């Protein structure tokens, strides 16, 4: 077991940031913490990286206890916080050199591990970190978090505010790091990234909604789900919400995802209702639930 989180709770005043959280992450696993802003993801990262003490519960990382062996953990983990936290006034190369030195290593010693990533920013190695674009900052931060060859990598929302192309590239980098045997715990508010993890924990308001593989999580979705479309989306949402038998109504890209309260739901009933309410070009088709559907269903309860 690479990360063991055992009934951890943490509150700030009246706010329960984490409420009795337990997760086990296997050696070499790519594990995702999926949840919105304020879910408690950052608090959990800070506890696991020994920057914050839990109120209750215990945890270990790479075999070390987060309280008793905190110094050992700091040598074994790489941490990329959500906010850019490198030295803005140092150059790209100076930052990397600095982090290698405090961990008692050199860039040359572990260059293999970061080569794929660092090579993309190497042309700018004399530029100050503060002057890099968002995507380049992200790559430098990842290089710095990896330079001491950590066993476990903690990435707190590495892709927030990043465009879909750069996000995709970032996840490809993570997969390659995983292949090198590094355990990765990564958080994201983007539900589509969940599918790229081995297992995920859906988390909201400090509580875990579910832990499983992305595939199993969507298979657990409790109801048949339908794509519904019509000529006027705003009117459609209004009328679906007003329908007496609706269970959930959520816009989902081109269509609205609709579920019904009734067991023997017949889409023709819904079509008749929408027609009567003045909607045209009605489209109703069975579709598959996504991680986001599951998240919303669980969060509703």
């Amino acid at each position, binding site marked *: 077991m690479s990360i063991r989180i055992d009934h951890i709770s943490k509150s700030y005043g009246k706010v329960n940031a984490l409420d009795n959280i337990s997760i086990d992450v296997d050696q070499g696993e790519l594990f995702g913490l999926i949840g919105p802003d304020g879910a408690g993801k950052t608090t959990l990262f800070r506890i696991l990286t020994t920057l914050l003490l839990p109120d209750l519960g215990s945890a270990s990382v790479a075999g070390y206890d987060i309280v008793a062996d905190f110094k050992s953990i700091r040598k074994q983990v790489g941490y990329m916080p959500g906010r850019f936290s490198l030295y803005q006034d140092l150059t790209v190369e100076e930052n990397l050199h600095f982090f290698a030195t405090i961990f008692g290593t050199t860039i040359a010693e572990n260059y293999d591990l970061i080569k794929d990533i660092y090579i993309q920013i190497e042309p700018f190695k004399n530029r100050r970190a503060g002057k890099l674009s968002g995507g380049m900052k992200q790559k430098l931060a990842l290089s710095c978090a990896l330079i001491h060859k950590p066993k476990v990598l903690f990435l707190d929302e590495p892709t*927030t505010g990043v*465009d*879909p192309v*750069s996000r995709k590239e970032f996840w490809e980098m993570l997969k390659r790091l995983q292949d090198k045997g590094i355990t990765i715990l990564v958080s994201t508010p983007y539900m589509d990234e969940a599918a790229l993890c081995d297992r995920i924990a859906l988390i*909201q308001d400090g509580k875990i909604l579910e832990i499983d593989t992305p595939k199993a999580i969507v298979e657990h979705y409790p109801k048949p789900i339908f794509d519904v479309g019509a000529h006027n989306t*705003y009117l459609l949402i209004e009328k679906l919400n007003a329908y007496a038998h609706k269970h959930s109504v959520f*816009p989902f890209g081109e269509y609205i995802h609709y579920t019904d309260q009734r067991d023997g739901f017949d889409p023709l009933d819904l079509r008749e209702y929408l027609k009567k309410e003045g909607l045209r070009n009605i489209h109703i088709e069975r579709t598959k639930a996504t991680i986001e559907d599951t998240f919303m269903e669980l*969060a509703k309860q």
Partner: protein
Amino acid sequence: MKEETVIKVAGLTKAFGDFTAVNKISFHVRKGEIFGFLGANGAGKTTAMKMLIGISAPSSGSANVAGFDVYTQTENIKKSIGYMSQKFALYDDLTVKENIRFFGGIYGLSKDRISQKSNLLIEELGLEKVANSLVGSLPLGWKQKIAFSVSLLHDPKIVFLDEPTGGVDPITRRQFWEMIYKAANNGTTIFVTTHYMDEAEYCDRVSIMVDGTIEALDTPKNLKSHFGSDSMNDVFLKLARS
């Protein structure tokens, strides 16, 4: 009935030294339309938006926003539009009510009108319990919904939304879009940027910027069929990676 055009852009360009951040972009946006303005980080979206809201002078080309020229009538533009972004929306150290009063005042609304609008907004969003709480103490999703309502206080013709839903939970994100639909249905034009590609599908039309130019502009449906893709995410990846 002739459709009213509220944003007209032709050959709009902005250069910083040798670097052309926005390169001859042209498009029109209709009244009441939800217009998605997409692009990778660094493609020039923010620079283009700054010109449209009248805080950055173009290098060349023309643009007319809400009937006003972006070179000579920037003050009129600022009065005719609303603006909110993910990075700055409301003052954390003011209460919900104080923020509404502050922004109402900035937009030149009368005292009576501000108090009337304030009550309406608080009622619509169900904020009675937190009206006197500091905005900083509220969850991000609430803040963003309040910020959007505040950007509509002065009944602007156009609202510019710069990544309004980044990091917001999926349910609140959808409630936010329902508010957008409602505003558009009332005739307010919505100009929005986002990195959530499912949100691109909620737009009437979408433009995709790559390296300072608009590479595609159409309805999500047409873009998908044109690129042989089943999602906007795929369209985006095909365009921005080529």
